[in-house]
């Protein structure tokens, strides 16, 4: 299971990094969302994986999952929504102001249309 989680985090990170290196707004937004997933799962997994163990206090239970990382991630998810919303709005504003959704101004790379 650890291998699955780790590879999933790695794949999502790679995809996120690739997307934020694009030069139009929308892929960057999606890339940041991907990075949020990756980071959230990363923090969550740093509490170690637990199957069928509650984060709920119960004297009868034999073990718990780590509630601390869960609490951290919970707020992180909500905050990353707020962050995404702000960037979306900025991207939208930039596009409406200038009619282009490019995010940088250097002109050294030609459009290859591929």
């Amino acid at each position, binding site marked *: *299971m650890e291998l699955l989680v*780790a590879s*999933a*985090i*790695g*794949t*999502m*990170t*790679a*995809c996120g*990094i*690739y*997307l934020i290196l*694009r030069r*139009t*707004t*929308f892929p960057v937004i*999606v890339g940041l969302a*991907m990075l949020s*997933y990756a980071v959230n*799962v990363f923090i969550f*997994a*740093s*509490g*170690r*994986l*637990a*199957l069928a163990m*509650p*984060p*709920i*206090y119960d004297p009868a239970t034999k073990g*718990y*999952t780590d*509630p*601390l990382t*869960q*609490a951290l*991630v*919970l707020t992180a998810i*909500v*905050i990353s929504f*707020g962050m*995404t919303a*702000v960037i*979306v*709005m900025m*991207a*939208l504003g930039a*596009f*409406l*102001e200038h009619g282009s*959704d490019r995010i940088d*101004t250097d002109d050294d*790379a*030609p*459009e*290859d*249309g*591929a």
Partner: protein
Amino acid sequence: MSLALIAALPFLGALLPGLMIRAGKNACALAAASATTLALILLGLNAPAVFRGEVIQTRIEWLPQLGLNANFFLDGLGFLFTGLILGIGLLIILYARFYLAKSDPMGQFYTYLMLFQGAMVGIVLSDNVLLLLVFWELTSLSSFLLIGYWKHLPEGRQGARMALTVTGAGGLAMIAGMLILGQIAGSYDLSVILTQKEAIQASDWYLPALILILIGAFTKSAQFPFHFWLPHAMAAPTPVSAYLHSATMVKAGLFLMARMWPVLAGTEAWFLIVSTTGLITMIIGAKIAFFKDDLKALLAFSTVSHLGLITMLLGFGTEEAAVVAIFHIINHATFKAALFMSAGIVDHEAHTRDIRRLGGLRTLMPLTFTIVTVAALSMAGIPPLNGFLSKEMMLEEAVHTVWWSSPWLLPALATIGALFSVAYSFRLIAHVFLGPVRDDYPAKPHDPGFGLWAAPAFLAVLVVLIGVLPMPMVGDLVKVTASAVTGEAAYVKIYHWHGFVPALFLSLTAVGGGFVMLGLYRPLARLWDRAPRPEAKAIFDGLMEPFAERSRRVTEALHDGALTRYFAIATVTIVAAAAFAFWGAPYAPGLRAMTPVAAVPLIGWTLLVGATIALFLYHRNRLLALVLVGIIGLMVSVGFVYLSAPDLALTQISVEVATVILLLLALNFLPKRSANLSTPARRTRDAVIAGVTGLGVGALIYALMLRDFAFPTIADYHLANAKSGGGGTNVVNVILVDFRGYDTFGEITVLGIAALVIFALTEALLRAGPANDRLTGWIPDARRAGDRHPLMLVVATRMILPIALMVGVYIFLRGHNQPGGGFIAGLVVAIALVMQYMASGFAWTQARQKIDYHALIAAGVLIAAACGIGAWFNGMPFLTSAFGYVHLPPLEEFELATAAIFDLGVFLTVVGAVMLALASISRIAIRAGETVNVRPYEIEPGRPVKIEEA
């Protein structure tokens, strides 16, 4: 405590003017003045103790591990300087209120001024050298803001930059010197360092420390050869010049020398360096001042000269000289601040401060003339004014000092300095106010209103009073201050007539010579103009240019404005650092047993990884990308369920819905495909960066998960105390609302701010401008659905609404003990509301709901804060929760916890923020011509439908 409060009050006062500028300029000035007055009163309360010779201390631990503590102490020296800073500060606040023009942003001015005042008070009250250094740098920064206050003037900006460079660099040298002193003394507390004279002077590091500290003091106090920045700083508004460059900031260097006097003075090195620097500065400053035609430049160089005089006195290293130095600090502050303010008045009324264009103002501005004459005669050292007393005493000390093994060299040079001082003081009076009235002033000069002349007049009165009655006025103050400087009880006796002593003849020579020089001004000035002399600004610019050029090149290479480049550089740097750390240490595989894999998670994993790879491949089709993001988010939520995190799963899935709706709304106005702007080589490069990063992150978490915790995790504490301490069994929720409630409070505040930012951005876009034009002329680039509000969807969402709201309430209520809570409930309710918008149309729904989302956010944050503050009334720290069990007869026993109130705040903020964000984007759609439906359904049963030809 009161000392820390004196230092803190100006900083608190700095907040008010910036915030209150809409309440008017008077309110602004009053706010700044109130803070200053309050600090003065607090200082006054400590006066009796200080005059009894006590040292008042306040000690607050800040970072004891670093030896950095917020320790303050108040002795005579600190008292004098605090009094000067606050007292003159108060006069400046009054003066500036009437000096600044209507168009100047006054709130900003007072904020900067109070920041500066706080930093200065901090310097003179600090008992900890590290704290002192913090305040020291703060004065450089705040004075930078003040000098460059008139941002539209290039001289202002250049002068500010020069002042910051010189004093900032000096500050850096001083940090090194202070650290050496601290190391020698074994403590960073001044009160300890000051007792270590023998150890410090015997140390090999004494000379380096001395030189470094003196560089700091000399740069700040504009001593030769660092004096050049001060005249350029005169581009500042006159209140700033009067405050910073006559009374306070430039005296910080003197303060420091006086403060360190007990441990640094008394050696040959101190005497030679300090007194020589002071002497040279005094003569050069006075000489240049005489030839300056700009009123403020004349005063600036005269300030340089007087600072040199005081430095020289401190350099003598004798107690008598220290007494004179202190006395002259007081006198200089009074007459020079008055002169600066008067120069400002002349500039303000005559619209020029060029001496060549002035003259004959005596009859036109009689009041200003009187003030300037009193102050300038004091500066020249004419009896019975206070400047006479200290200059006489200075000459007396000079006569007794053997310098470069010559008994007469120093008195002679000091007399020359005094002679120039007399000459420029007389010139100031004669060439500005005396002579015939002219008819070509840029504006008709007249005396200003009370607000402008009150402050300099008050100082002029002090000049006379101290001059006539020195002992009753300042005798005790000088005594207690000088005692603090020297560390021993000082003997102070100030009187006018010393008999026929050498100092008297030197003084007479200076006055006579000054008169002669004034008479010879024209030929002398011609000579001066012809003589070659170094232009400090050109040298400074020449020195700075290569540095500026090089840093510009580096900056432009790294920060070329392309976001992708920053991301790439940052990512590569992090990966490289991680790789360096990894290869530099031994690696052992983790020993923790792996969790078994069942078939279902394997399917989920395949979906997630497959969708991610597909996203990588097809991200340019934006709609498809959104669908893929949805799949990934869903799989992450499912993963959370499987891995025992029900709260996270609930949050993730509801956030997922909100995010996808948000992105869809935005995508409506963005291109549906991403243009391909990158070359294949660049894509390959990016793919490599991304791949390596992904591999690294994956490997890192894999290695982490296969190891046990290196330290016992604090999660155990939370698990053990959730029920007993927090009153809830859902530990995740208890952590959020109780253990880490403060974090959560911060987070909902951030969320609220984010929503408000979105709202503000929308407002900006909808104002007249290119964005608005583009929206009003919007042509949809995708075909619209024929039935935008389908009957089925409308009916279903309406039926679901009460159920969804009930689910929301249920999730909220159970949250403390079972998975759920404010965050999740907020998201659920928000989605239930958003569904109404989607189904029935934005305008139709908006017209039927009365909820103000701003108010919702505000209420949420305020409720959470109130809940936290409530704990104070129970005598507990902020956000301590309380709970109890209640039994109402028909119901079972249930729990009531204050944490639920806090959670309610979270809930309201989340609902408000999500809704405000989505509603803002919907407003853009309306502006783009989205039709507003009158009826909820597009096609209503029973209503005849008019079919249009496509």
